[in-house]
């Protein structure tokens, strides 16, 4: 899925704000941010990290520079292993024009050698927001791996699967044990984009800053 295609589809589906969060890699998120500068859509730089405990953590950042800092941290902690394309498929690199320019041979579906709490602290140190991913799911989730949601933890929000979001009839601003709840579309192919989205009826959330602000206020209430 090239960033170009993702953006075209998202615009066609009338999405205003998106984030691309690939596993332990940032190139396409950065490309999408650059591409979107001339497009009627806002893109928040982001990534989905895997902590040492095998908990997936979404991280969103105010700008590309911060995401670059995150990339360096990923490179420091990602064990050097080769991707098996038979299992995980080829990880293609695209350029700004949507042309394939290479293949990423590094295995990304592994845990970084850094604990969840330290990872959250690092994300915060570069002004990002840290959100444990799909906490209701059976695999790679905070609840499955670490048993429960520690109310004193420093997460900015928690993400649930879209199935949970729909089932529980969640709205933006709702909380789970005090943490604001969000949900991602989990789009893994172009056709998925736009099928699930979060409605911001107050039209408050326009970009990273207003998202961060919104989550902070939701958490305090």
């Amino acid at each position, binding site marked *: 899925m090239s960033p170009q295609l993702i953006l075209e589809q998202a615009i066609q589906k009338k999405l205003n704000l998106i984030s691309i969060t690939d596993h332990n890699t940032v190139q396409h998120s950065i490309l999408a941010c650059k591409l979107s500068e001339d497009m009627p859509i806002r893109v928040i730089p982001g990534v989905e990290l895997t902590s040492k405990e095998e908990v997936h953590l979404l991280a969103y950042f105010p700008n590309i520079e911060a995401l670059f800092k995150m990339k360096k941290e990923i490179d420091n902690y990602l064990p050097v292993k080769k991707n098996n394309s038979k299992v995980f498929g080829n990880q293609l690199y695209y350029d700004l024009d949507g042309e394939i320019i290479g293949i990423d041979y590094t295995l990304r579906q592994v845990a970084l050698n850094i604990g969840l709490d330290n990872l959250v602290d690092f994300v915060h140190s570069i002004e990002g927001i840290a959100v444990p991913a799909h906490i209701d799911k059976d695999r790679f989730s905070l609840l499955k791996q670490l*048993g429960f949601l520690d109310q004193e933890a420093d997460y900015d929000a928690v993400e649930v699967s879209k199935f949970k979001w729909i089932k529980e009839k969640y709205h933006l601003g709702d909380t789970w044990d005090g943490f604001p709840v969000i949900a991602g579309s989990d789009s893994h192919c172009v056709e998925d984009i736009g099928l699930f989205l979060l409605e911001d009826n107050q039209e408050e959330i326009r970009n990273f800053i207003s998202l961060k602000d919104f989550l902070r206020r939701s958490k305090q209430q």
Partner: protein
Amino acid sequence: MKLSKIINECRLETIVFCTDCEIENGYCGDLMSDVMAHAGADCIWITIQAHKNSIAVALIKDIKSIVFTNNVTVEKEVIEKAKEEKINLLRTDKDSFTVCGEIYCLMEAKTAKD
């Protein structure tokens, strides 16, 4: 079986030692949701998950002793919490399979003798 016997026989490194408790059985698992569901009280828990939630899970399940395997780093925060809650923390560079095997053999031998 006394915890001290297991520590000596399996050559485990002691990080926190509060009480030489009686170990009735063991459990091995890295998914805390699974440990909460299945581990028995007074067991020795063998895991690679050295997170502070491990201490909380031990408390909930009345587990008094945890063995961290695979040479994992145990953060200061985890050690402090274990001291506070009186949970014994052991550590080893062996993997979970090996440690489980060693402890299992020890306990089986004792049961057979009794």
